[in-house]
């Protein structure tokens, strides 16, 4: 297990390294000059003020030193919490903006992922043994798996918001409210949270159900299940063992699907104008705020790494092979 953990940690460190490098590298390798773009917003500059302003910005953003030094400075900034300053929300620190948006995104993501995973697994396992359930769950699951995030993010608010006026369809809370910890605000928060949550939840639900169903079917027919049946174990026990075996690949699948789920989350937030990280990204794009974009990217990379790590820990505790194996990779 030590070797397993070491490998994992190396992977995380490398991933972080690659992520930061890509993040730093893109603006510098892309055509165009970010400061020029910035200055393009200021109308009526004569060449002297332009040059002065250019020099000023170059200094402020640390762009007037050689590339390798810029790279190192970037790293330094990451670790000292200085992730740059937003251009769009002029002057606000990237970290501030990110941390403001983060709770909204987490409130959306975590329950949606956890619930869809747990319920999806239950549904899939149940479908694996009841034919009638299988015949409804399976087609429904395929359809939901096939729905593009943007579409659901349009149809759901359309039906439940615009047609049937059950829920609001945009923003994080009522427009006229001031964030305070009172019931009006909180209920408004929940009201606005529900539809985006439902969207992310529904799309993932189908996938987990189908995956679990297939895994359970496979496990129910594997050698140890057959052996237990041959020795007269009742079907309930056989099923229990099958579920246990099936949940391992599912857990790995969760770790692997995180990147995708985050993507879907972003799309949903944009569609709902929900003030989370996804929406922030969108604002950054439309306002050409590259620094904000970069900061958010790092943040998400770190988030994914942490989530992966948590799942790895859970996996170790559930799979005796990983826990006890003293070897490295098996062939």
């Amino acid at each position: 297990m030590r070797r397993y953990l070491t490998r994992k940690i190396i992977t995380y460190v490398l991933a972080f390294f690659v992520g930061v490098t890509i993040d730093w590298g893109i603006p510098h390798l892309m055509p165009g000059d970010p400061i020029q773009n910035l200055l393009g917003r200021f109308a009526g500059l004569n060449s002297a003020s332009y040059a002065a302003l250019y020099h000023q910005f170059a200094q402020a953003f640390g762009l007037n030193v050689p590339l390798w030094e810029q790279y190192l400075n970037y790293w330094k900034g990451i670790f000292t919490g200085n992730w740059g300053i937003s251009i769009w929300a002029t002057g606000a620190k990237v970290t501030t903006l990110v941390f403001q948006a983060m709770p909204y995104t987490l409130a959306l993501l975590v329950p949606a992922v956890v619930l869809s995973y747990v319920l999806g697994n239950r549904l899939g396992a149940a479908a694996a043994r009841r034919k009638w359930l299988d015949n409804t769950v399976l087609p429904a699951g395929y359809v939901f798996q096939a729905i593009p995030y943007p579409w659901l993010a349009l149809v759901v608010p359309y039906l439940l918001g615009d047609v049937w006026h059950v829920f609001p369809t945009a923003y994080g809370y009522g427009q006229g409210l001031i964030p305070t910890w009172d019931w009006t605000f909180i209920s408004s928060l929940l009201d606005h949270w529900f539809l985006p949550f439902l969207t992310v939840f529904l799309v993932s639900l189908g996938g987990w159900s189908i995956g679990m169903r297939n895994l359970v079917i496979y496990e129910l027919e594997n050698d140890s299940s057959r052996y237990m049946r041959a020795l007269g174990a009742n079907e309930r026990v056989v099923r229990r063992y099958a579920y246990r075996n099936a949940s391992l690949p599912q857990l790995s699948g969760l770790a692997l699907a995180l990147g995708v789920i985050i993507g879907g989350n972003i799309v949903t937030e944009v569609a709902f104008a929900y003030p989370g990280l996804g929406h922030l990204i969108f604002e950054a794009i439309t306002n050409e705020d590259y620094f904000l974009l970069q900061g958010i990217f790092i943040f998400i990379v770190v988030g994914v790494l942490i989530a992966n790590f948590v799942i790895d820990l859970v996996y170790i505790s559930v799979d005796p092979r990983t826990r006890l194996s003293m070897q490295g990779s098996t062939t």
Partner: protein
Amino acid sequence: MSESVSEVPKAPDTPGAVPGAVATPVAPVAGAPVGLGAGGGRVRRQSDFLYYGLRNKKLVFGLTLELLLLLLAIIGPIIAKYPDQAYTGFPTQHPGSKFWFGTTDAGQDVFAQVVNGLRDSYLVGLIGAMSAAIIGMALGFIAGWRGGILDEVLQMLTNIIVMMPALVLIIVIGSYLSHPNLLFEGVFIGLTTWPWVARAVRAQTFTLRSREFVDLAKLSGKRPVSIIVKEIAPNMASYLFLVVVLLFGSSMLLAASYDFLGVGPTNSVSLGWIMQQASNEAALQLHYWWWFIPPGALLTAMVAALLVANVGLDEVFNPKLREQ
């Protein structure tokens, strides 16, 4: 200790996770799973394949639906009465005999837009799946065949790539590029989804390379490349095919998300773009349902047909899954 997903090419087997809105390894390798084609029991004869293939409801249904949609994508733009971007002068029309899917608030024919968008989707799906397949198969074969340090490096690489949030990455890259096009989008998707293929191929190569017929080929002096191509690949072919089909579907879904956010190609009409336009023009609040319902519905149908056909195909290839 290898990643558990890699040893189970699931759909059933396995397991295998596929990206897009698809969250789990179906199959394969699933995985795994989905079961994505469990180990033994490959269909050997052509007749077996045809027999079971034609009788598998899922395969027939999925394939038929997909072909119909493909047909729509091909002849749709031809039979559409207006070019996709043209202004017909009849804004916000409900669907009717004149405009089958109605018009946008600027008077563009939604039907024309949608069928042209279908084309884009198929194309990007193809490019994405092919790029991912080529890269993934090449790297997966090498890692599985050689093992050792090469394999460790590949595993590290796939783990890292999988962890990168692709959507944010394409946003960051895309916002710096002035004119993203379809090819770029497709290749980008391929570059971010090849790990799925590589994992599955690697796992299968590992299992197969230690089988006797490979030893036999080695003993008779065949070169490694020849062994890979002639002995190992045919045995994996069915499984690989399943993975590529899934990737095709997920590429389409990913592209729709990217287009919706505005980082996709801007010189052509795509289904994601249509939905973005509808959203921007407050189609929801104004109840212009014909604008945003058709593109998403058709895309769902395209991907769902693929998924269902894929499962049917898996059942044909892997007798264990058949419900008899």
